[in-house]
């Protein structure tokens, strides 16, 4: 078994979560991109089309698109079709608002973390926790033998 790797990050919304990574190099807009009833990716121009985000740790460089994505994320969190957590390279105001509103309304915390996402692959096990200083601790358990070189 490969040793897990840990890195720190900044919380946009604090919380704990575990799940399998779903990694995209291209940002995904929740509005017009995800069906909040199912968690299915519906954006025909996105490589993730047809996959499902529910319960995953969604990993992508940034958010994208319309401010209506806040509503779609909040609605998905309410319905249980949202990712378990999201890792981003750059802070995203639209997703932060959606996640915080859902926490406020439904007391469901979907952690939103800004951290280095290099080297994370779809299928890796990800655990998001909180360090003593309040920073996010992201633990990555690679899914496969890293004989395949990874950037980190």
């Amino acid at each position, binding site marked *: 078994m490969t040793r897990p790797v840990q890195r720190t990050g900044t919380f*946009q919304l604090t919380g704990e979560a575990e799940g399998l990574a779903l990694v995209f190099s291209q940002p995904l807009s929740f509005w017009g991109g995800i069906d*909040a009833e199912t968690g299915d990716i519906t954006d025909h121009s996105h490589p993730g089309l047809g996959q499902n985000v529910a319960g995953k740790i969604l990993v992508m460089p940034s958010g994208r698109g*319309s*401010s*209506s994505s806040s*509503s779609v994320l909040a609605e998905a969190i309410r319905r249980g079709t949202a990712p378990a957590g999201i890792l981003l390279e750059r*802070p995203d105001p639209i997703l932060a*608002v959606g996640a915080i*509103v859902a926490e406020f309304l439904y007391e469901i915390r979907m952690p939103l973390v800004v951290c280095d996402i290099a080297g994370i692959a779809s299928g890796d096990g990800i655990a998001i926790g909180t360090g003593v200083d309040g920073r996010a601790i992201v633990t990555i358990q690679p899914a496969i033998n890293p004989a395949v070189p990874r950037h980190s």
Partner: protein
Amino acid sequence: MTLELNARDRSMLDGEQGPSAAAAMKILVAFSNAVGADSLLDISGAHIDGCLFHGKAGLDFVERLVEGGGRVQVLTTLNVGSFDLIHPGMVKMPAAEEVPARRLMKAHLELGCQATFTCAPYQTRFRPSFGEQIAWGESNAIVFANSVIGARTNRYGDFIDLCCAMTGRAPAWGLHLSENRRGRILFELDVPDPEPSDSLFVGVGLIIGQASGDRIPVITGLPRPRDEDQLKALGAAAATTGAVALFHAVGVTPEASTLDEAFQGHAPDETIRISRADIGHALARLSGVPDGAPLAAVSLGTPHFSHQEWMRLLPLLREVAPGRRIPIYVNTGRATLTRLQEEGALAGMEAFGLIPVADTCTYVTSILERLDGVVMTNSGKWAHYAPGNIGVSVAFAEMKDCIRSAAVGYVVRSAS
């Protein structure tokens, strides 16, 4: 990420001004951190695009703020809802949808918002003035406020517009700050002696929206508009094909008396020439319907028809006198409608097929009687969104051609 908060901000955040203000401030702080603002600034007004019912989370949010005793802290207007509260019989909606749609509109009123229900708050007595800091939602209202009035707002949307209203604060970033309002991309309208037709303004709007990306566009060569409704149409089109929140038109808009002022002394990153043919192509893309196609309806007033536009439409209706009962829907603000009724201006107009619609818009809810034919509009925004939203075919034309077509029952357009 060091967001500076003043004592009042902190007091809100700590819950000393109630749970609703605390929630709004918490969300505003997270948003401000995410956009990299250093501090918050005072706003004098807000416009909330939260009355269209999109799902339970949106309604739950407003209900929770109401339960927490929340009140907006600044003058706050409301965008259109999913329902025409003035003409309730007109909206074809199952009861299961109607109840939350109406409740969403009413819950906003309980927070102290004004019952404007218009996408054109700049046509009401609540219009802001030059230089005012505001937090507005609704893309056409945002671009109008920034460009035509010279008030200052970013593109606020879901939840965050209401959080600004509930706290009276907005992040000090983006278009709130003078240095970020300078032009970046130059569009030279290369049309000799252009007539200030409505189509010209729509066409220019469509083009700058498509080509600007996140850069602020500056237009030269634009003829002096007949009225601000033409700038409304330009901005609405630019915010439809793109994300334009502010444009400058040299010699026309208030922060662009000269090219140099519009660019704040800098050079444009890029210059694009717009020819008459470019305008023609942009407009042709809006309208796949050939002349002669049978007409189901006309829809005007997206964004909401101003009083001045009504004063152009009503004489035209009397003159052309369409008698085939083809419905001519006109979306307008309830305040404008009330004024027209007080003036007696609408008397007898139903005979020509006129159907005023208030509080909502014909492309966001089920109002049109027939969806199986061609609908004609003079709105670039309506022409862009209606096929996807309500499934109609659209013919775009000047207003007088829309009315002439209603009179003959099929699409006719003057050569232009």
